[in-house]
């Protein structure tokens, strides 16, 4: 009986003590460390072999969800000579629809080699899609120390399917 009581009070005491120790009053340790967010603080990289998709698609949603989805295949490239954390951006736009979407990737030395940039499936209102196909463009940017460079750009056909 007393052991049981001891165990319970032990755990409660430990929990409370840890909580107090974490506080500014005692301030011995800080248990909560903010995660390091990748941030753009300059850097550069050599990017070669940029390969962009040749066609993209607007397809109707599955499972009765009704809305349309914009599908953009991945872009691939090769990264070398990384210094700091430069930034890679992958952008897709359909000017006729006023549609634009992009992702950004922070590149570090660990990313040296083949690298893929992807855009997630994105919902688009069906009533906005009226033609069978649209002209769109995919672009890859590199933001380094000095400037933002357009590494590659390609005009693509957007097929409306389904």
């Amino acid at each position: 009986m007393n052991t049981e009581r001891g165990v319970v009070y032990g755990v409660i005491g430990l929990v409370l003590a840890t909580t107090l120790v974490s506080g500014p009053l005692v301030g011995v340790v800080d248990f909560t460390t903010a995660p390091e967010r990748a941030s753009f603080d300059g850097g550069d990289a050599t990017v070669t072999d940029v390969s962009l998709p040749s066609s993209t698609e607007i397809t109707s949603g599955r499972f009765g969800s009704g809305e349309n989805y914009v599908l953009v295949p991945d872009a691939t490239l090769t990264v070398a000579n990384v210094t700091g954390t430069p930034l890679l951006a992958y952008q897709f736009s359909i000017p006729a629809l006023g549609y634009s979407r992009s992702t950004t990737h922070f590149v570090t030395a660990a990313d040296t080699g083949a690298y893929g940039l992807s855009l997630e499936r994105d919902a688009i209102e069906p009533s906005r899609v009226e033609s069978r196909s649209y002209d769109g463009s995919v672009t890859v940017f590199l933001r380094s120390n000095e400037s933002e460079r357009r590494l590659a750009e390609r005009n693509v056909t957007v097929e409306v399917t389904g």
Partner: protein
Amino acid sequence: MSVRPGWDDSTSPLRRRALSLLWGDRIGLLIFLLSLCLFGLTWRTAFLINDSYTIANGLYALEHGSLDMTTAAYGPGLETPGAEWYDGELFSRNYGVIFAALPLVYLLRALELVADLRIVVVAAWCLTLLAATLLAGRILDRRRTATYAGSVAVFGLFSLNVALATPLDPVQHHLIALQIVHVVGAAFVGVFAYRLVRELHDRRRAVLAAVLVTLATPLPFWAAVPKRHVLTAAVVLAVAFAITRSRNGERAYATESRALAYVLVGLLAWVHAPEALVVLVALVVVDVPSAPANDARSLAVVGGAFLVSLVPMLATNFALTGDPLTVPRALRNAPPDADLAIDGRSGSNPDAAGGDTQTDTVPEHSAAGNESNEETSTVTEGSARDGREGWSTPPILLLGFALVESAFEALATFGELLSQGLSKLSTRPDQVYHSFVRSGYVDRVARRAQDAPSANLSFLESAPVVAGLVAVIPAAWTRLRAYGGSSRLRPHIPPVDAFVVVFAVCYSLVYVSRLPVHAQVTVRYLFPLYPVAVYGLVRLPPVGAILDRHWRTFAWTYSAGLLVGSQLLFVALVLLTPGRGEAFQFHALLALSTAGLVGAWALTGRTVGKCGQFGALSIGFATAAATTFLLFVTVEYFALGDSHALPMVRVLAELVDLV
């Protein structure tokens, strides 16, 4: 295995009475503690809906000593949905919860002086879990096992969470205080489901009712969202419980219970007057004819208690507008609430045009948040108030007249809403179908929803066990045959069932003309109907019989469905790479298929042999489908920037990347 639900003899009588008042017995308290632990897992310390900004800013204003809002501590500005201009000042809404949350803000500020708030959250959750384990050990008479297992588990979980902890966003005290108020309210939904069913049936069925209310409905999703829905649900169940208790005049505290029902409604009016009115109408219609006594004394007690419970609301109104009866969102002033207002604003959202051009960096919660412009009131103060301008200092008598007058006006609006609901049923049954049965793609919703048109499930898709309600057909048929159709022996309907039915009908009719709308996720306007439906479900003789007989089948199917099914579902979703709308509809179809099983069994109404076992199995699957959806929606679809209160859940959410 013996079960000991009673309080310990060592508990002092006063403490025992206090515990009994709130939780009934130890099982009620256990349900409460376990609910808190569950809601701790789904708790995200971020804004899901724009309306919550209004309440958080209102709390910020109150903490700084005023009722009108001048500083937008949260959100894009002060004019968020539900904020109301009156006489050049901007007021918040749901003042009941704002006042309830105020002490918590002070508590949080005090705790922050001595401890890291994130660690406080983790510690509170761990200690709640420890308390629940120890209590479960006492109830099941396994004290030793529970003590050791619980201590070890809690120690492990605490260490794990502390190791993974990140700092809590420092500015969010008001949001967190509001969330705690709602989480506690939500935990009472399960408690009162248990206590209500316990009054009418055996303990097992009562526990299963609490389990179904908590795990087979979207309760855990809405628990930590500062919206009125869970509070209304808790009050409805508590009122039903009070009705049951007070029908036998010989019983101890019968009149007090009856008065308590009215007090709860009065307090709910402080939070949300229109919904309180719906509960009040159902309560009065059922309570007065069925009460054990309607003598002057008991009516005075009940009426007096009700009037006293309205005092906080009237006092707040007085402070706001100088007139106790003028609420910024008053019933009398026109439509009872922006939520309920019926107007022609079905045109497209002016903001919608730019909806798709955003980049990945837009915070996820805007998906749900932006939609709730719906709730922005178009009602202006004015005409209705003008008549009262002359009464700058109303004497008691005039106040009495005004009360009666405003009550009639409220009832007239209420009647109007009911008739609008009825006409909607006859003119647009397709929209009612979208809200209750199959959501799919709804054009009207999609036009206002900027980037998540299909992130809305129907009532049945959110809680597929509700399909079991069709068992009312075989049950009624059995009864009819037993009575031989003789009207002389018409079966007696218990008052509590009458209350629940009247409430459910009125409540659905009031809201149905508005639905479907966006930013609902699980038809949240109808949220109080979920626990009510579960109550109806366990009351039906066929469902009750299989829960009694085959509860083990139910428990095993549920566990397997949740543990194995959710993993299979995860793999399926990884392979399908759906958008969020598609993922929602995938869950919807899954839920509907389990609802189909439940419905098919319920139609047979058979409870013996394989058929009964199949029924328990189908209910287990339907419950697992609902819980799985809740798991995915809180961890992934509406992770709100991975702002989970518990570090271990946050890490899980960071690992999972589906949509």
